[in-house]
């Protein structure tokens, strides 16, 4: 539920937009915007590492995103910051995130 609250609060270009949230007896469904650009892990695996100029850009955007979350009184909690090796969120447009 924290996730839904936070996504609802955050109106920033650095964080995935929450389009809708709904629930049934078992699950909470969060419908996110579709991001066609891919994920950071795949990009890093492809390039092995980035040069400092590219890194500066990506890490600066990450820092801005984290700061926006902090401003709303939340911590990202180290969580799945960028290169989470778990399955990412993008499966079609509907993502089941929290089982109850």
């Amino acid at each position, binding site marked *: 539920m924290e*996730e839904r609250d936070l996504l609802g609060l955050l109106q920033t270009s650095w964080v995935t937009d929450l389009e809708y949230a709904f629930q049934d007896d078992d699950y909470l469904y969060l419908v996110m915007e579709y991001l066609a*650009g891919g994920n950071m892990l795949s990009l890093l695996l492809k390039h092995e590492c980035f040069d*400092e100029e590219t890194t500066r850009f990506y890490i600066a955007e990450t820092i801005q995103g984290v700061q926006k979350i902090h401003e709303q009184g939340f911590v990202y909690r180290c969580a799945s910051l960028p290169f989470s090796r778990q399955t990412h969120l993008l499966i079609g447009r509907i993502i089941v995130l929290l089982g109850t």
Partner: protein
Amino acid sequence: MLFNKDGHVKLADFGSCFKLNKEGHVDSQVAAGTPDYIAPEVLQNNDGIKGSCGRESDWWSVGVVLYEMLCTNPPFMGDTLLQTYGMIMNYKEKFAFPEEVTLSEEAKSLIRGLICDRKTRLTYEQIIAHPFFKGLDWTNLAKGLCPPSPFPYFWRLW
């Protein structure tokens, strides 16, 4: 961490985010998050000590990501989860830059300012003023051009 179609960064996956209390900390006995990126003070929360983590724990994680972007692998990566935890707790001895990678002094200094004791860790204001970001236009990042061809084919997601 995902990209939009233009290649700008979008943070996603807030499954383990927590709301801060009035003192700006999270009180929790449960360590959450991808192990490689967890700050030592978050791991310590599980020792039965009434510990807490705050915003500074996220900046540690950003430091780990920065290291990974420049050096290919994250700085603390054991064969097992327990080993990784051990390396993070002993980061003062275990942390090192790989010899085969040449990094600028600015990059090293920023990483060291993030992967360090929480009391001396850089704050947001100090991070954005760091020499590594010299010349970067923070206010227009989202409008700026992205590095070339970030990841044009969405089907490569899988």
